[in-house]
């Protein structure tokens, strides 16, 4: 009679299967376990990537499947890289990326620094601060559209309270100068808690003994901050920047809901423009080339960033 669970499993395995498994090496068994993941990766990531690269050299249009597909070489890339409208969307994306990362890192680190201090209601405040991150981007977009309303929006009233300007005299999402900032503010409101959580993890990983040793050496709080806190939180901060950088490069839903890319094309980010080319104008080959350009950019940036992160970790 089998006693242990192992023996029970061995007994339950059909004799034919058991014989076959007994003949496999450890390496073969390892491959059997890893193969489904590799297959999934190839099917979901690698194959679509290769297919997109192939399509980027053609004039294929997915809404005209019966039309002959022509090989156009580098023409799609030439058109994209000579198009001043796409250049403008790149600049809009750069503005959005730069300011969201700067604001989220500064505010997120500041909040983490405050939350890391022991005070009454610490957990409650953490929950309140983290709340925006749990919402759907579409909900946040809708919510901020109401906040930015010139007549009834709370945002304009808060600004008027501090500046004395008439609340109805400006429109955050209707003004070409203010609209890029409206998406920066909404994204910062939503994703600063994420950066805060990563920074908090970094701050809590610093052993108290290091600060105690610094106190013994009579290091000032300012010096402790610059020589202990910042260097030890830096890998976490860099991870936060990497995550937010890649996510914001792909930002779509929040901005579509908030401004729809307008007024004009002033808040049209690359992902919004790409979606329009691919699924409104149905230029599949052209949009594939566009996607390849964005992919190479993000991949290149992520490569140097991971290298920098590893260097910081080695220190």
């Amino acid at each position, binding site marked *: 009679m089998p006693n242990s669970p192992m023996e029970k499993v061995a007994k339950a395995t059909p004799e034919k299967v058991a014989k076959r498994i007994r003949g496999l090496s450890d390496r073969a068994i390892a491959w059997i376990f890893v193969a489904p993941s590799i297959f999934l990766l190839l099917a979901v990531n690698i194959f679509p990537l290769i297919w997109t690269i192939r399509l980027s050299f053609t004039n294929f249009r997915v809404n005209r499947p019966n039309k002959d597909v022509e090989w156009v070489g580098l023409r799609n*890339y030439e058109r994209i*890289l*000579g198009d*001043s409208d796409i*250049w403008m969307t*790149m*600049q809009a*994306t*750069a503005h959005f990326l730069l300011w969201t990362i700067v604001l989220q890192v500064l505010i997120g680190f500041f909040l983490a620094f405050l939350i890391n201090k022991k005070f009454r209601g610490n957990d409650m405040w953490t929950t309140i601060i983290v709340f925006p991150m749990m919402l759907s981007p579409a909900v946040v977009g809708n919510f901020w559209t109401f906040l930015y309303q010139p007549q009834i929006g709370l945002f304009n009233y808060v600004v008027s309270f501090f500046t004395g300007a008439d609340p109805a005299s400006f429109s955050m999402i209707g003004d070409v100068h203010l609209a890029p900032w409206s998406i920066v503010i909404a994204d910062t409101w939503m994703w600063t808690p994420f950066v805060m959580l990563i920074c908090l993890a970094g701050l809590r990983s610093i052993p108290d003994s290091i600060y105690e040793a610094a106190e013994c050496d009579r290091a000032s709080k300012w010096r402790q901050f610059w020589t202990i806190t910042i260097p030890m939180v830096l890998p976490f901060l860099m991870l936060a920047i990497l995550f937010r950088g890649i996510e914001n490069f792909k930002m779509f839903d929040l901005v579509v809901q908030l401004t729809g890319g307008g007024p004009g094309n002033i808040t049209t980010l690359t992902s919004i423009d790409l979606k329009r080319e691919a699924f409104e104008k149905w230029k599949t080959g052209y949009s594939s080339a566009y996607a390849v*350009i964005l992919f*190479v*950019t993000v*991949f*290149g*940036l992520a*490569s*140097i960033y991971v*290298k920098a992160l590893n260097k910081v970790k080695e220190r």
Partner: protein
Amino acid sequence: MSNFVKGLVGFRRGPWEMVASILIALGVFMLMQPFALWLYTYSFITTLIGTVMFILVSHLPK
């Protein structure tokens, strides 16, 4: 500086990764800068060369 050049000539990973990283950063800057359209036009090829170089040189000895 001389170590950097020696590393380049001796096909060491560090200096070549540095060159690749500079090319990628330059390419991304060219892609998103608001100053000249021609810089934008040549941004992709710069980033692509940098990225491919980065992948290749990451297999060189340290």
